[in-house]
Structure formats: structure tokens, C-alpha cells
């Protein structure tokens, strides 16, 4: 199951970067440790429920978020403005949309909430202990981003 989840995260993330951003991202090894603490970063978080309950979160250093937003909108981005927040929220939405489709092929139906975007100089994100947690890093030209999937129940 865990391998499956990892592959679904990779497929969905690469597909979004390929089709929306025309950027190549390379997945790294799934992280062994949970990452809680973020500095000068932005995180897009999206909850889901249905046959399984969980959260998908993407974490980007500011510079990476600016690159992604600039690439998507074809503009120069220099500050953490609404464009960046909207882009990172929408990225979370699209990646989870891909994972939702993959779940559905296996008969698991989920419904998505709306994305929330956190940003700041120093913040931490935690979730309840009973959730299983998988984090895949992705490398792109400007740096690295993390895609994290937390699930309450696995069938």
C-alpha cells in the first residue's frame, strides 16, 4: 500500500508539473522522518474525506514557490503575494485531483475540501498521531519541494 501511495504521489505531481508548468520534477527517496518545521516557506494544504480521510500538503521554500508561480503565469514574481498563494493552493488541488482519480480506479471514492495556504518566516504543521504519513521530495531547477499525504484509514 505504501509503495502504491508513493507512486500515486509521484505520478500525480509529475503530471501536474508536466502539463501545467512544462517543468520536469524528479522525485527523491521518500523521507524517513516527518518534517514539521518550515522557514521562509509556503504550504498548500487540502483536506479530503469519503472512503478515506486525510490531508494533502505541499511545502515549498519561497524561492521555489516564486519560480513555479512565475512559470505558470509568465510573470516575474518577487514577493509572497496573492498570485503565489493562489498558485500553491491550486497546485495542491491539482495534485490531489490526480490522486483522487487514481484512488477511484481502485474503488476508493474521496471528496475534496478547499485548499488552505500557510506562509511565513517560521511555522510548523502537525497532524493527529493516528494518521499515516508519507512525504516525497521533488527536485526542480530552483530547489526542492515536498508533497505529503496523510491518511486516517487504509483499506
Amino acid at each position, binding site marked *: 500500500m505504501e509503495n502504491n501511495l508513493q507512486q500515486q504521489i509521484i505520478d500525480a505531481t509529475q503530471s501536474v508539473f508536466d502539463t501545467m508548468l512544462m517543468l520536469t520534477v524528479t522525485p527523491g527517496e521518500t523521507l524517513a522522518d516527518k518534517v514539521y518545521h518550515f522557514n521562509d516557506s509556503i504550504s498548500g494544504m487540502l483536506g479530503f474525506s469519503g472512503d478515506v480521510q486525510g490531508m494533502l500538503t505541499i511545502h515549498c521554500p519561497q524561492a521555489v514557490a516564486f519560480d513555479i508561480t512565475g512559470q505558470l503565469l509568465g510573470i516575474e514574481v518577487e514577493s509572497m503575494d496573492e498570485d503565489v498563494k493562489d498558485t500553491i493552493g491550486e497546485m495542491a488541488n491539482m495534485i490531489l485531483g490526480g490522486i483522487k482519480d487514481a484512488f477511484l480506479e481502485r474503488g476508493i471514492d474521496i471528496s*475534496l475540501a478547499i*485548499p488552505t495556504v500557510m*506562509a511565513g518566516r*517560521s511555522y510548523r504543521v502537525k497532524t493527529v498521531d493516528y494518521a499515516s504519513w508519507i512525504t516525497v521530495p521533488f527536485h526542480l531547477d530552483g530547489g526542492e519541494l515536498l508533497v505529503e499525504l496523510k491518511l486516517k484509514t487504509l483499506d
Partner: protein
Amino acid sequence: MELQKHITDATTEIFETMIMLNITAGDPVLEKINNFKCSVSGVIGLAGTCKGILAIHLPDKVAMSITGSFLGMEVTEVDDDVTDAIGELANMVAGNIKMILDEAGKNVTLSIPSCVYGDEYTLDTAADCERVVIPFNIESGQFLVELQVKN
């Protein structure tokens, strides 16, 4: 107007029955509040026929005092107890709001709660939403309960 009443009813009930603290609801906050300093935010998604998020924003001090009341012990830092308690608080308030919305003919399901905290962070919703923020006063200070529902 309806969302305001849902938030007030749900939050008041949870505090009275689960945390045994008296709270007083204030008038809805009209200006946009998205910047938090030394605070803890519990966030949970609403999915189903009514999509949205519920968030509870508390200054560190208020989060610690609520956790202390909830667990019956003294809390002096924002540790795992606090983040668990505030995540669970968001879960309980959202659970109550879910019941109210279900009775009104919606079919709402909840995601798992998350807890965001830190010295300085912003929290925004990236969707076209109806948004209501209600401040609540308790002895140790004030906290905000925010409900956003997609139109």
C-alpha cells in the same frame, strides 16, 4: 447570518460540554485577518455537498490555557499536547457544524485536522468562499473561529 449562528452554537456547546469553560461570542470580524503571530491554528476541511474549511486561531497563551483545562494539567509551552488538543478542538467544532448542516439537508464529511503554529505565519483560503469569523472571549484572552464555505 446562518453561518454565524452555526459557529456560535457549535463552539459554545463544545466549550460547555467538553472543556467546561465559559465563552462569550463577539460580533463577527469583518476585516480580513490572515496574519498570525505566536499563535496556534487548528484547521479541518469540509467535503461532500458543502465544501469548505473550519479554522480556530488562538494566541499561544489562550491555546495553552484551553489545553490545560481540557487535560486538567498545567501547560507552559506549545508542545504536542497543545497541537493535539487544538486539532481535536477544530475536529469537535467542525463535527457539530457538520451535524447542523446535515440537518439542513447538506451532506458534509470531514477531513483529518491539522495544526499550524509558529512565530509568524499567514493562513489564506484559495477559493471563492463565503467567510465568517467570530471572536470568542474567555478568561485567558480571545480566539477566533473561522468558517469558509464555497459558494
